[in-house]
């Protein structure tokens, strides 16, 4: 009997320990339960899949941003890179005939790699502060996109391509499956590979890691390439959602992505953060936004409510950790 009681007690205690360890997960669960209890439509399959779909694009950017933040930097050019990738993808798709789709996707990813390489070189080898380097790249990229498109969206993307952005497989949005795959893959890279461990080490103490024989510059370079590739993938998915390349797309995504990573428990000082936390951070932001819309909160009040909820959630998490 004693043995049979130990099971549930242990599982309850490990659950509460888990919650204590993942405070933001607790906050997320509280928000979800509160919404589920107070708004019937929240719990519908349609609404849940909507939330997942709406936040997958920003989620992929946040996955990349997690690496940048853990290594002790961040990337303000991700929104511009996503917009550029969407325009490059749309232009190539609409001008390359029957192979337009694979060529468009490939060109967008290549553009992302190029931006990441420039960011990485500026930060790792020219020692330019990540804020300055990526802010500069953000404005350069946006400017080039406006120049090349005359600030006009690129229409004419094959309609079938919207299946990528709006379609579902067995009820799950395809963009969410891609987000999940990327989060799992990058989470595994972060936790299980030498590269991931070195990212943590460099973010924690770059000088010490370099004494250990690790090349922090190379790591930073690769990290910024990775961030930009994630942004480029998001740009391609935006084309899948809107059937067009939008020069003004992803405006402000950089701050939302950074917020999601920080809400997920990462430290802006570097050396700390988890992919699981980032995913929860993204979903928490998405659920709050969805809840406010379902309750019909005025758009004037929505930013206030979002800010208050985020500060409460992160504040509780930090208090618990302290």
């Amino acid at each position: 009997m004693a043995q049979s009681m130990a099971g549930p007690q242990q599982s309850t205690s490990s659950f509460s320990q888990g919650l204590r360890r993942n405070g933001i997960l607790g906050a997320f669960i509280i928000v979800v339960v509160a919404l589920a209890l107070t708004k019937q439509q929240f719990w519908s399959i349609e609404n849940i899949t909507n939330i997942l779909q709406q936040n997958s694009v920003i989620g992929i950017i946040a996955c990349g941003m997690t690496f940048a933040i853990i290594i002790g930097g961040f990337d303000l050019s991700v929104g511009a890179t996503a917009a550029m990738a969407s325009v490059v993808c749309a232009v190539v798709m609409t001008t390359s005939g029957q192979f337009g789709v694979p060529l468009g996707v490939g060109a967008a990813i290549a553009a992302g790699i190029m931006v990441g390489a420039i960011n990485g070189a500026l930060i790792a080898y020219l020692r330019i502060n990540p804020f300055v380097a990526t802010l500069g790249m953000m404005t350069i990229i946006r400017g080039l996109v406006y120049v090349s498109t005359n600030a006009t969206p690129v229409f004419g993307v094959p309609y079938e391509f919207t299946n990528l952005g709006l379609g579902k497989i067995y009820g799950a949005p395809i963009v969410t499956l891609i987000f999940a795959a990327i989060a799992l893959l990058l989470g595994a890279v972060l936790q299980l590979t030498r590269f991931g461990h070195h990212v943590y080490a460099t973010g924690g103490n770059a000088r010490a890691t370099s004494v250990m024989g690790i090349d922090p510059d190379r790591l930073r370079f690769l990290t910024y390439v990775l961030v930009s590739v994630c942004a480029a993938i998001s740009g391609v998915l935006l084309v899948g959602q809107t059937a067009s390349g939008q020069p003004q797309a992803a405006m402000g995504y950089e701050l939302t992505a950074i917020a999601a990573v920080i809400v997920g428990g990462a430290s802006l000082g570097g050396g700390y953060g988890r992919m699981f936390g980032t995913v929860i951070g993204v979903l928490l932001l998405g659920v709050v936004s969805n809840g406010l819309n379902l309750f019909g909160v005025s758009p004037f009040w929505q930013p206030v409510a979002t800010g208050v909820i985020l500060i409460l959630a992160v504040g509780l998490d930090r208090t618990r950790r302290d």
Partner: protein
Amino acid sequence: MQNWLDKTIHRRRLLRQTMMALLAGSALAATGSAMAAELTCPAAAQEATVADIAPANKRIAVSVAYLKVPFYANFKLGLEDGAKQFGFTYDLFDGNSGDLATELANLQNFAAQKYDLVLLTPSGEGILPGIKQLNEAGIPVIEVNNKAGFGRDDVDVVTYVGADDVEFGRLQTDLVSAHFGGNPVKVAYVMGPLSTPAQVLRARGWDVGRGEHPEIEEIARVSDDFDSAKALAVVQDLLSRFPKGQIDAIVMQGPEGAAAVDYALRIGRDDVVFFAGDYPADVRQLIYDGKIAGTVNQNPYPQAYHAMEMAYDYLMGKEADIKRPYFLPLPLITQENAESVPPAWGC
């Protein structure tokens, strides 16, 4: 070894079959929702050149608050054509997405550089001190597309050339009412970026129109920031919030709803009728396909062109020819006339 090879070949075959099935599924889905017919995409109509006009040979400065918004692509073409026609050289400046400090700096520079005239698309009334500075410098100001100082006593603005955004919002209620035959209709209203002139004035007109059409019941008011991805998210949430029977229409201030309309049709919400604002190429196609019920066409090209014309009349002393204000028509577009009216931009 042979066993391993067989397994590998089997796995590859399975993978290839899965990929083929996915591709076939995608193609089927696409065929099922394919558009009836793709419209050709003619460029927006341009003003005809008039031969016997003496060139003004003056220098104009143009400041546009939201130059990077797609709407202004054809606006720039209108400026170009107007300048050519009336003999102006002009310099075009961006207001950095409605950043008042940038707009004010633009106007201060115009005063310092002694331009002959300023064409101004302001972000709002915060620009009034800048207009006052231009007045003090003796530089005439004409407002285009958005207005802030025209009609006020404290600043001097020659005229306003553009659409009446209040009328724009009111006309959207006419569209809705006509579509539903004057019957009661529950509508969600999707606005642009909060506090911008387009959002504020179109919403004001929408409210005026709802007074004239009491059958239109507004059940929700949200914002999509004139962003396609956000428009999709906002519409998804509206459709979750209002199941079938609780909402009849979604009216958008802007033209960013293409993906949202597509989504609604994908999930079988053809009970909701969509109305857009403005008339780019993709909205035209969706109206032609019957997926959007209608829009109000605000064309940026003639606004810019006629602003140049008004500048010409003012600088050449033809004050009697100046229209104050110069409101351009806001034609309603529905499936009936979408094919014959070229889009305002996007081709």
